């Protein structure tokens, strides 16, 4: 696993690097001292894992994650268990409190192994940014005080709301600052389908398909949302499904 440590304090980075010497499976390929540097280094080197401090000068760790196209695996490091971390209780990857206990670090890395063997991250190659997001890629979603890491395969629906998109997964539907068109470009069309001007649906999350007015279709998703497929897109939809 190739990892980058992002923390504004040199000593904190040094300490973590030292602790990680006991884990040969984790290779620290770089360090960054703030969010800007972090973004550059993540985009250039595409690490499998980042250790991320939350309080940093300029932009916080959260801000940094929300501006990434897709998020690598993240282990948060912070000195004090603040409210911010409670937001992660539902689907936290993990977080470590500084000074880091070696046992907790071992557990966190163990947990990552488990995820890796179950769903190996594909496409570790160069130039990954330009390629499509795969179903195993995760995005970091921040809506006010709450944050989520969401796997694309868990998202049922994107709905356009002005300049924002509403992301439907589980019982949540936070907003992200991305247009539907921009999203469509980045999504794998074998998985995500543009049903109409306002909606992109996850094809694997469709529960029922019914005929609708004007030769359109009505899709019912697993979360109960009913989405109309425009006439033009219905043709495309039928083509894809008949394969």
């Amino acid at each position, binding site marked *: 696993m190739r990892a980058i440590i992002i923390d504004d*304090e*040199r*000593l*904190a980075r040094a300490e973590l690097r030292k602790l990680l010497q006991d884990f040969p499976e984790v290779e620290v390929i770089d360090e960054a001292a*703030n969010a800007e540097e972090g973004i550059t280094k993540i985009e250039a080197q595409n690490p499998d894992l980042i250790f991320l401090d939350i309080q940093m000068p300029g932009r916080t760790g959260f801000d940094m994650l929300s501006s990434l196209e897709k998020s690598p695996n993240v282990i948060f490091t912070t000195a*004090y268990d603040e409210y911010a971390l409670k937001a992660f209780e539902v689907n936290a990857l993990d977080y470590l409190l*500084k000074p880091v206990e070696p046992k907790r670090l071992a557990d966190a890395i163990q947990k990552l192994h488990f995820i890796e063997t179950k769903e190996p991250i594909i496409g570790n190659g160069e130039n990954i940014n330009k390629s499509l997001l795969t179903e195993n890629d995760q995005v970091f979603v921040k809506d006010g005080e709450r944050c989520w890491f969401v796997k694309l395969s868990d998202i049922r629906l994107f709905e356009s709301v002005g300049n924002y998109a509403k992301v439907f997964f589980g019982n949540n539907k936070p907003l992200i600052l991305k247009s539907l068109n921009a999203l469509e470009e980045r999504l794998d069309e074998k998985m995500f389908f543009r049903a109409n001007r306002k909606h992109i649906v996850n094809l694997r999350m469709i529960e029922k398909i019914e005929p609708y007015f004007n030769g359109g279709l009505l899709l019912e998703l697993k979360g109960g949302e009913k989405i109309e497929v425009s006439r033009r897109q219905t043709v495309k939809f039928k083509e894809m499904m008949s394969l």
Partner: protein
Amino acid sequence: MTNANSRYWLCQVAGWGVVALAILYFAHAYKSPLSTNVILGRVLVVFVTGILITHTLRSFLKWRGWMFQSIEKVVPKLLAAVIVTSVLFSLIVLVAFELLGLQGPQGTKVTFLFKLLGSVFDNTLLIFPWVVFYYFYHFIEKNRKQEMDTLQLEALIKELELKTIKAHINPHFIFNSLNSIRALIDENPSRARTAITELSNILRSSMQVDKAETVTFEKELNIVKDYLALENMRFEDRLKVEYEIDEDTLDQQVPPMMLQTLVENAIKHGISKHIRGGTIKIISDFKNHYHELAVQNTGNLNGGLNAEGFGLSSTQNRLGLLYGDKASFEIKQVAPSIVEARVLIPVQMN
């Protein structure tokens, strides 16, 4: 309670004593036909009965809890009680006169009922003021007690507020420092050792402040120096510190951990948010009759003052609690990209 009780008896004896003296005076002034012995006997009867009957009335008032009822409700009842008491008073006195042979020469000519009516009228004029005085006294006493309670409550609140303010030391700082120290143990063991001493000093003083309302500025400054040394260890070349201390101010008394809070605040907003860091400058000086304490940091006030939270509002509160309106606190932009937090404390002479 015993104090209030003895005051009650003192008032009783004094009040009825005045009545007794008045009777004696009038008897003398109007050349009463009664013999001196009869007059003295009558006065004694009135004195003793008066005290006994009003004491009974008081017990009754206490027993029925009339002291705590609203005025509109209690006034008619009280008037009735005054009349009943006066009638009883008169009856007892007249019967006592008869039994003790203290009736006057005209006693045979006037009917008992007539005497009773006259006496009731007289006694009402005694009992009514007694009740008014009694109520008035309790009214004042109650008000005073209420005021005392409010004052005590306010003092308690102040004390509690001070305690919570003092207890505030940022846990983030403690754990970050510990983390840095752990890294230093390999890299620079002697710096790690001094860092542990510095951290201990800060923790100790944050626990000891409960014992003192103020400390000498010298003591406070030492804590701040330890604190900044630790922050310097964390931020390394991102943090520069300058001191401008008038040595005579070292003996001045200051609220503990207040300068520390201001410095912590300056680091939080002036240094830790900026990638390149900045400078912290601490100034202590005499300005007119004030001890001026100022902390300057690199940065800009973005009008977000109220959002800066606990540190600043608590400083304002503490100064208010300790010095009233004699101390002042302000935070402002003193130069392009220099923010200054400044406290003025009245100088104490000793």
